[in-house]
């Protein structure tokens, strides 16, 4: 192998590791939902190329109210699904949609678009 082959090989491998780390590596702690007077733990989630924030931390046993606002035209994002709660909602473009959940058990519950491309996690703490 010549020099150019070695260079391409090393760059390729570094790039692969970089990509693996970037997409699969540990992500930051997520945002904590605020607890409101109404007794709800609330968070606003923007749907645009993904969920912002995509990690929501809440406490067990208190109702959760998530407000989704979709600003993403692609039809992939038109529905949000909480598989563990058997709950789903259509998200019309540009409208706030409220999803209410009652997490009884601590754990980590994913929520995704219907095709599983956009992903977020609801982390329920004790």
């Amino acid at each position: 192998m010549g020099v150019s082959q070695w260079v391409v090989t090393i760059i390729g491998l570094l790039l692969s590791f970089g990509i693996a780390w970037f997409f699969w590596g540990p992500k930051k702690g997520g945002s904590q939902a605020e607890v409101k007077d109404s007794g709800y733990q609330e968070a606003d989630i923007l749907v645009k190329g993904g969920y912002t924030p995509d990690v929501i931390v809440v406490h067990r046993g208190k109702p959760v109210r998530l407000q989704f606002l979709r600003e993403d035209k692609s039809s992939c994002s038109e529905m949000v699904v909480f598989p563990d709660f058997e709950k789903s909602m259509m998200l019309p473009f540009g409208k706030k949609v409220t999803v209410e959940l009652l997490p009884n058990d601590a754990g980590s519950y994913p929520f995704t678009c219907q095709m599983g491309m956009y992903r977020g996690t609801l982390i329920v703490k004790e």
Partner: protein
Amino acid sequence: MNKANALKHFETRIWLDNSCSAVIVEKALLSMSGVLKAVVNPAISKAYVVFDPQKTSEQVITQKLEALGAKVLDSHQDRQDCEHHAHHQTPSEEQNPNEEGSEYRELMRKWWFAAAISIPTILVSYPDLFPGVKDWLPMGSPKLWWARFVVAWLTIPVMVWSGGQFFTGMWEGLKHRSANMHTLIATGISAAWLYSAVALLWPGIFPDPAMAEVYYDVTTVVTALVVLGMAMEVRAKGRSSEAIKKLIGLQPKTAHVLRDGQELEISVDDVVVGDVVIVRPGEKIAVDGIVVEGTSAVDESMLTGESLPVSKEPGQEVFSGTLNKTGSFKFKATKVQQDTALANIVEMVRQAQGSRIPVQRIVDKVSAIFTPGVIILAILGYVIWYDFGPQPSYIYAMIVAVTTLIIACPCALGMATPMSLTTGIGKGAENGILIRSGEALQIAERLNTIVLDKTGTITEGKPSLTDVIPLGRFTETEILRIGASIEQGSEHPLAGAILDGAKDQGVTFVQVVGFNAIPGHGVEGVVEGKRVLFGNLKLMRKEGIPLADLQTHATRLADEGKTPMYLAIDGEAAGIIAVADTVKEDSADAITQLKKMGLEVVMLTGDNERTARAIAKQVGVDRVLADVLPQDKAENVRKLQAEGKKVAMVGDGINDAPALTQADVGIAIGTGTDVAIEASDITLIKGSLKGVVSAIQISRATMRNVYQNLFGAFIYNAAGLPVALGILYPFLGILLSPLVAAAAMAFSSVTVVANANRLRNFKPKEL
């Protein structure tokens, strides 16, 4: 001036910041003097207030809203036609058709543009393939270079406009450190474009002039094909949710209500519980309620599947979305907005369509790692081809990487189950079968045993008095009088049959003292000073009553499918009263079909063995579990499961609830307005057992469709990826072009969608 007219409607767009919640604002508004109604819907940023202008004003309400932390954006006062005011139940569905339509049209425009630019792009990329072009723009000529230069500029709007969503989608994804379909396409088409630009502008940097080829065709054709695929997907997706749109379309927009003696036409959302609603012939019923005046026939086929109109008179229930046929009547609203039976059905279908089937979870896990994995594969493919591939290795490596990125779009995989599920569950709803979740659908496909409750499921559930057999010195009238009297306090369905029968024969009832119901046995009490026992054989045995030849009569009656009940007076057998329930017209037919589908059919009943067997024989059921106490029904289902069977329990939902829950799939057979909806996995809104047949057919058809899609998507990726990476090249010399990859990718998505749409033509069929 009329009071109703004096009230003012006030609608405003508001913005609720984080410090206030809708409920608090509503409560605060309602606590104000003069405010009669306040609805705040944060989802559509609207507040809707009805107030008495003599007590308060718009300004006061606005001030109050501001004080609560809600920003008031604009307002419309006195809008009588509050078509779109807050709390509208289904904003999404009503807007969807337009939203979908506009998305489809925009994608189609993008496709036409990309397709148009693709033609000159292909011509200049491969001039050798086109005889006329070959002579006009020969390879290596300055004319060809200039033609390619022009095309290079033309491809920019294709990428920016037609393919813009790939780049914005990729960027938004990258911000979340996630990769999606857009990431793959955007990387692929821009890699091809950049390579072409370098080849065009600085051909000198390539060691071999043959490498300085342009691949603008990859950019434009891939964009065009993928955009076309997306457009077809949008259109097909709209079709798959047709069922819900149909259901929502059933509810009329307005209702005529009587307020303060005046008839007003108002939006259905403004109808409140207690309103008296007027319905004329040909009108749809707006909300659920109870008829208070007038009679009519109402077509309830949309909810119950019953094709004959149902006659309605005061005291009877009417349901939102049904059609009034003949007369005019007034009814009192009992359930409005999201509480109506129709709204519940819509919500249930919607939830089910969005739910996951267990098999999908594996797909979810795969797609989470899929896209970054493909990018890494593309890079590694590049490296391997660059290092070990044939010369010019630059080109081979680039083709392999771009092809890999484009062919591996995970769309087909992601859509495989949701598309079929949405269509299948919608199909169920169209046929009066409400499937609660994708999981129920998946299990229903694998059922091998169907347990049918007898009363109300196989039979009509409306037993009637058939025989009265007195013994010895007792007369027919006497035992009917005593038997019917003691049953006055009973809630057992058979008691009703005896009471009705006795009334028809003009029997006068007498007082009962010390009435007591013994579950699973019968009743006891004191009538005219005599101790009376009335119930089944178990009761007589328990009390040690000698039955003489009564048992022969009982056996004969039971063999005829009737239920005999023994009457004992002061410890002496007095006679038998028998009732019978008619078998539903199509029960036998449905059971035959279930058996043809390879299912074992079991009958479960609290009735005695002989009667149960007689009914079972009539309808063709082979296995009978009789004399089962209500509380033991679930236990019997569990025993069947212990035999390794996948069991569906079909019951009318009230006393069968534990058994419905215990079964792998609980199927409630009812009217669709029942609480039964809550207890079951599947609800049949038509009362017929044929629904069970259809439900299983739908689940089988849907799951078959899901497996086909998953198989197709899996094979496509499993085969496409290695071929794109060039695994066949060393053996067969086959290397895919990025154009073929784009076509394959668009085709795979469209195939999945088209296959799911085949389900729309599904019709439950007679076997």
